[in-house]
């Protein structure tokens, strides 16, 4: 694969978004694919997917299965997840 092909491939890679627990129920899905265009932080992704929904609870973020902050950067191909405070144990 040439470099230009490789770049084109990366640009086309979507962001995989996962939802858990009450957020999964609120959005009515556990997973979706998003184009990374115009989305640079986790907060950008959150605003994009939650637009029009009434989310009153606290929301936690992760990128590639590690906790992230609102201003953490996302890239094409990343796995981003949104979930409420954890209640295990």
């Amino acid at each position, binding site marked *: 694969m040439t470099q230009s092909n490789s770049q084109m491939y990366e640009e086309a890679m979507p962001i995989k978004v*996962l939802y*858990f*627990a*009450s957020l999964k129920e609120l959005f009515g899905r556990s997973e979706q694919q998003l184009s990374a265009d115009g989305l640079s932080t986790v907060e950008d992704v959150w605003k994009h997917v939650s637009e029009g929904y009434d989310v009153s*609870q606290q929301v936690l973020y*992760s990128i590639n*299965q*590690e*906790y992230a902050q609102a201003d953490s950067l996302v890239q094409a191909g990343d796995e981003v*997840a949104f*979930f*409420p*405070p*954890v*209640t*295990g*144990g």
Partner: protein
Amino acid sequence: MMIKVTDNAFDPWQELSTFQLEMKRDGEYGACANFIGTMRDMNEGDSVSGMFLEHYPGMTERHLDKIVQQAKEKWNLLETLIVHRVGELLPNDPIVLVAVWSAHRKDAFEASRFIMEDLKSKAPFWKKECVVEADQQTQKNRWVEKNTSGY
């Protein structure tokens, strides 16, 4: 070191004795501290008849592994075992087992507490409980909003 997330009911005493036998550390450990969390039939003043425990496959195991690595950096540990149940649970079912083996009690006591408190506050698990309404006839499902602080 072993981490198990399972949707099968487990017997924590059996898990402890099997792991301790198989870890082959006889003569090395002088202390084993363990914590077992069990499902109650009451929460926030309501009668609870069942529970569903959801997790984030991949991140959950990864986070538990990270907690254990942090504990190993802070204390002298020989072995650790974590078992956590997911899926459908009934009252009195064991939910979680954390066990730590070390030469002396300080390391085992403190590390097991550290692992358990981090698990409760950060590991991605979510409980949805089935609550029996005051009329004793109907039931409703509700997400547990937050874990109480253990300290």
